[in-house]
Each structure stands twice: as C-alpha cells, then as structure tokens.
C-alpha cells in the first residue's frame, strides 16, 4: 500500500465519506440526458463559486462605509496589485451568472423539467433567480457611485408607491429617512451575508434534489408524465439506458463550465472593471443615472408605461409573475414534456425574450431621455442657416438657447424625446407651429410663458424653413382658398 493510499485510508476510517461520493459520482443518468443542453445549471453554479471567491477577495480591501467605499474602490482599481482584475472578474461574473441562470431556466422550462416529481426543484429555482437578481442589485449598490446613489433613489421611489405603508417601507429599505451611511451598511449585510447564505442553502437543496430525483429525462414527444407511473418509468429508463454521471455526463459540464469561466476571465481582462463612476455626492445633479445591464429593461419599461399604470404594474406585476412561476408546476405538473408539443410554452418564452431584448436594446440609447447638453453642445447644421433671413437665424439661436434641442433633433443630433424637426414645416403650418410652441401639448411643455412674442415669431420663422428643398411646407388649405376667393372677388369688382 502506497503512503498516499494509507493517508487516504486514515481519513476514510474517520470520515466514512467514500460511499456517498461513489453513489453521487456513479449515479446513473439517462444516456440522452448526458447532453450539451444540460450544462447551464452546473455552469451557473461554477460561476457562483467564482463570485464567492472573488467576493471574499474584494472584501479584504473594500470598506462598506458610505464615506469611504468609493475611495476604497479607487484604491482597488489603482492601488492594489491586480485589484482592478478581481473587481472586473466579480463584475463580469455577475453578468454571466444572471445570464446563465436565465438560460438554465428557459432550458428546464422548455424540457418540462418542472413537472412531477421535480416541482419543488423548480420552485427553489425560482427563488434562486430572485436571489441572483437580488445579488445583482445589491452588488450595484456596493459599487457606491452616482449610479448606485440614484439607483437607491429609484428603489425608494418604487417602494414609496406601496399604499398606506409606503413611507415606512422606504425608511426600512434605506435604514433611515434618506440615503446615508446606514443605507450602504445594510445593503452590504444583504450582499455578503443574508443573500449569499440563502443562496448557498437553496443551491444545496436544489442540487440534492437533482441527485435524489434524478436529472430530467430527455423529453420525447408523446411520452407523457403521469403521477402514478412516472417514478417507475424513470427507474426503468435509467436501468435500461442509463450511464454513470461520472464520467459519461460530467465531462460536458466541466468543459462548458471552464469555457464560461474562460469567457468571464477574458471579458474581465479586455473590458476591465465596472466603474466606479462619479463620487456618490447627491449635490452633483449633473448626472444621468442608469442601472446595470440586467435591470435596463425595467428602466425602459418605466419610460413607456402610462402614468396611471405605473404603480399597479410595479406593485402587482412582480407578484403576478412570481405567483405564476411558482404555481406553474401545480397546474402543469403532468402531461407532455417536449417543447415540440407545447406551443404555448414556446410562445410565452419567445415573447418574454423578445420583450426583454427589445426593452434592453431601447435602454442602450434611451430615446425617452432628454439630452441634457444638446442645446449647448450640438451645432445647428450649416445648410439650415445658409441663405436664411436674420429673423430665421435668430430663431435658430432661440431654438438652441431655449433647450428645444434637448428633446428635438435636427440634422441627426439632439434628443429623441420629441419628434425630429428636420421636416417639421411639412407636417405643421405656420399657425399650428405657433400654437404648438406657445401651448405645448402632446407631451411637450407650453413655452408661452418663457418666450415673448418676438421670440415666438423668430423661432417659428426658423421652423417654417425646415422642409426638404424640393417639398413645400404645409399650408392652411382653408386660408389659401379664402385668399384666392378674396383675389377673385377683388378681380371681379374691377370688371
């Protein structure tokens, strides 16, 4: 017996762990389930391990104090050897983890894995998704910069919409009446103790159940799940067509997980750490807060919901979605597993993916936000000034000075909150433009009190010039007819 085997023996005599390890490694999985489609959960778990490790590393330096967190992040980025890289791995790891958890969820939903007897595994998975998102949000607060500060403000504003106890919920969330030192401290406790603790406990149960109940069998169209017979059928399947988890299935998990970790490491090296952006000083109001990638769909949604829909959507929407996810295995716990015969499931998942994708894409250029410095920064295109009268040029200056450009683009630059004005004269007559500027409307403020009549005249004379060179501006047909009939009347009078 070699020395190594002797040492191993010494531990085994005391730990008695070998049977458990052998049972876990050798447990039989249906041969078709040893598939490249079954690797996302284990990859998410591997990224979780990376997050725990890098998180502990960052905690060696990070100071969870509202007064010093930002400075300690700067120190991590610039003062500690490879501190920037650990921050980058942790930040990119969080992106990959949210993505993998979502992909894993879509895969198990499409493969009917939430059906009997794996209902509880799915429900725990739903909570794992919530915790992953919770980690992502609290993690964004840890990066205590301007975005974190105003992100907390947005969180508080959402909580403030809770009826009756809204103010109390806000105070509980922030640890006081306003964002301050206590706020960061409690988010730190959630980010490093409460949620990770729950996450590890839930992941353990989730994994244990996969072992005890067996991995989901490959869905065959027409092979229906019945509560009365499924367990026996699954046992027969693994007996007849089963392969040991190690090595037949695990090598795919390992190769995919290492590829994912490789991607995290490369992204971290190439793109570097996230921020921190500006110091979390609320008196610097010249800032444009934006949430991290995985919350941008919500940021976009809140720009498009009608005001009266927002509070119900914010407070009832999540409850409905959560209840539906949790109850799913109870009203669809039996029957067809294959996505080929579950068109509604496929449509719901596609719809959700397209919705989230579209909203996230919109959030990448935020057409609903005014561009706060367009009025002072963007030039008026030369062709809009060439050959114009002094009055029209004065109008162009007023157009810039009154911040019209923040919401309206001309020549391709400027805000997109309102319509582009490059051909506004084709759409509106002179009188309509005057009315629109003075009275506003259609989601535009009224400028009547902030422009004197001379300024309105100059501005509208400039707007009147904004039409393609070969296309006339809009004219009031009624006014035109009355002009012509006047002319005709005068003419006939002469006769």
């Amino acid at each position, binding site marked *: 017996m070699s020395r190594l085997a002797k040492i191993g023996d010494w531990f085994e005599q005391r730990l008695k762990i070998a049977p458990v390890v052998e049972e876990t490694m050798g447990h039989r999985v249906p041969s078709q389930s040893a598939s490249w489609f079954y690797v996302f959960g284990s990859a998410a778990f591997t990224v979780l391990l990376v997050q725990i490790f890098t998180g502990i590393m960052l905690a060696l330096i990070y100071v969870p104090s509202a007064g010093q967190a930002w400075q300690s992040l700067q120190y991590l980025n610039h003062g500690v050897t490879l501190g920037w890289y650990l921050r980058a791995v942790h930040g990119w790891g969080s992106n990959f983890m949210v993505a993998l958890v979502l992909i894993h969820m879509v895969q198990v939903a499409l493969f009917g894995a939430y059906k009997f007897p794996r209902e509880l595994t799915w429900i725990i998975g739903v909570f794992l998704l919530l915790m992953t998102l919770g980690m992502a949000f609290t993690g964004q607060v840890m990066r205590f910069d301007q975005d974190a500060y*105003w992100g907390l*403000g947005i969180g508080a504003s959402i909580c403030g*919409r809770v009826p009756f106890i809204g*103010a109390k919920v806000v105070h509980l969330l922030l640890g006081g*009446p*306003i964002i301050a030192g206590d706020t960061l401290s409690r988010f730190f406790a959630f980010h490093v103790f409460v949620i990770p603790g729950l996450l590890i406990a839930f992941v353990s149960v989730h994994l244990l159940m996969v072992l005890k109940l067996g991995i989901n069998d490959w869905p065959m169209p027409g092979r229906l799940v019945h509560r009365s017979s499924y367990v026996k059928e699954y046992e027969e399947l693994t007996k007849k067509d089963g392969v040991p988890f190690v090595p037949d299935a695990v090598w795919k998990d390992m190769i995919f997980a290492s590829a994912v970790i490789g991607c995290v490491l490369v992204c971290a090296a190439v793109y570097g750490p996230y921020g921190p952006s500006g110091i979390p000083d609320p008196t610097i109001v010249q800032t444009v807060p934006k949430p991290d990638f995985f919350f941008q769909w919500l940021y976009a949604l809140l720009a498009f919901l009608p005001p009266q829909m927002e509070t119900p959507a914010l407070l009832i929407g999540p409850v409905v979605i959560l209840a539906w996810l949790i109850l799913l295995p109870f009203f669809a716990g039996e029957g067809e597993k294959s996505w080929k015969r579950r068109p509604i499931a496929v449509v719901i998942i596609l719809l959700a993916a397209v919705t989230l994708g579209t909203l996230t894409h919109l959030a990448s250029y935020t057409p609903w936000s005014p561009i706060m410095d367009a009025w002072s920064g963007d030039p008026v295109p030369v062709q809009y000034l060439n050959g114009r009268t002094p009055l029209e040029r004065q109008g162009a200056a007023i157009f810039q000075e*009154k*911040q019209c450009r923040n919401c309206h683009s001309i020549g391709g630059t400027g805000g997109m909150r309102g319509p582009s004005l490059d051909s506004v004269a084709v759409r509106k007559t002179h009188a309509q433009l005057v009315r629109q500027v003075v009275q506003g409307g259609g*989601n535009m*403020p009224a400028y009547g009190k902030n422009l004197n009549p001379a300024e309105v005249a100059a501005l509208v004379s400039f707007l009147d010039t904004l039409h393609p060179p070969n296309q006339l501006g809009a004219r009031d047909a009624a006014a035109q007819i009355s002009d012509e009939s006047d002319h005709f009347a005068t003419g006939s009078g002469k006769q």
Partner: protein
Amino acid sequence: MSDDVSRRQFFVKVGVVLNGLAAVVLATPVIGYLLAPILRAEGGQYRKWIDLGELDEFPEGQTRLAKYKNPISNAWDGDTDEIPCWVRRAQGETFQVFAVNCAHLGCPVRWFPQSGLFMCPCHGGVYYRDGSRASGPPPRGLFEYPYKVEGGHLMIKGGELPTLASPSASLNKGSTGCQG
C-alpha cells in the same frame, strides 16, 4: 421503565419550551433593532428646521441650487449627508423649495433658466418653474419642502427623501399644471 421514558419525554418538552422562551426573549430586541429606522422616523428627529442660509443668497425671481447638511448625520455618511434642493424665490419672502428628486422615480432634475424648465435625465419628466408638471411620466409636480423665513434666514424641513408616500408629498399635491 415506562415511568422513566415519560419522564424523559417530559424533560424534552421542558427543553423545547425553555428554548422557545429564549428565542422569544432574544427575538424581541432583534425585532426592535430591525424596526429602528421606522421607530426613529416616528420620533421625527429628521423633521427639524434646517438653515439654508441668508435670504440675500437667493435673488428674487431666480431659482438656485442650495445645499444643506442632513439633520441626522453620521461621521461615516461621507458625501451623502450633503443634500441638494432647488430654491425659487418668487418674490419678497415667498419661496418654493423643491426636492431635486423627480416625482417619477427620484432621479435628480436639472434647472434650465433659459427655458424656465426643470428636466429629468432619466425618463424625461419636465416641470415648469413653479414645480408643476409640464410633461413626461411624473404623476404630479415636484416635491416641495415646507419652509419658513426666520431672522433673515430661509429654513426648510428636508430630512427625508421625498417619495409619493412621504410627508413632503402633501405639499403641491395634484398640481399638474398645464398639460396642454
């Protein structure tokens, strides 16, 4: 023998009850500790008057950014205990003190004196100079802090992050201005 077993079972029950009591005794202060932010808020320490400075700092007819120290302040608050607000001196001693937080989702609104508008960079909420809603998603006008003029100084109550649920929301409620 059976007596012995029932006695042990009895002692197990005693053990459970004792531990339950200990848990309750421990939980009471923990719950009080966790609810401290609410209980402290009931105390209203944050509602005291804050000095924004002398009236001369706010010229008539103008709107200016003012800063004040959070009335509940700790050494580890860092930059977060400096709170901004927009002060509009309409005329004489008539003021409006607006929170910078947009009534939609709390982002910081910016004042543009040229067009007389407050604009929010997040979702495009716009307000007129008197704080009333001009356009965009906000459900109401800007939040206003209560103010008073005392000894030539402007005082406000601004210790709370204003949200739709907070007391500072009681001012200016329903003032949606001209929606066109």
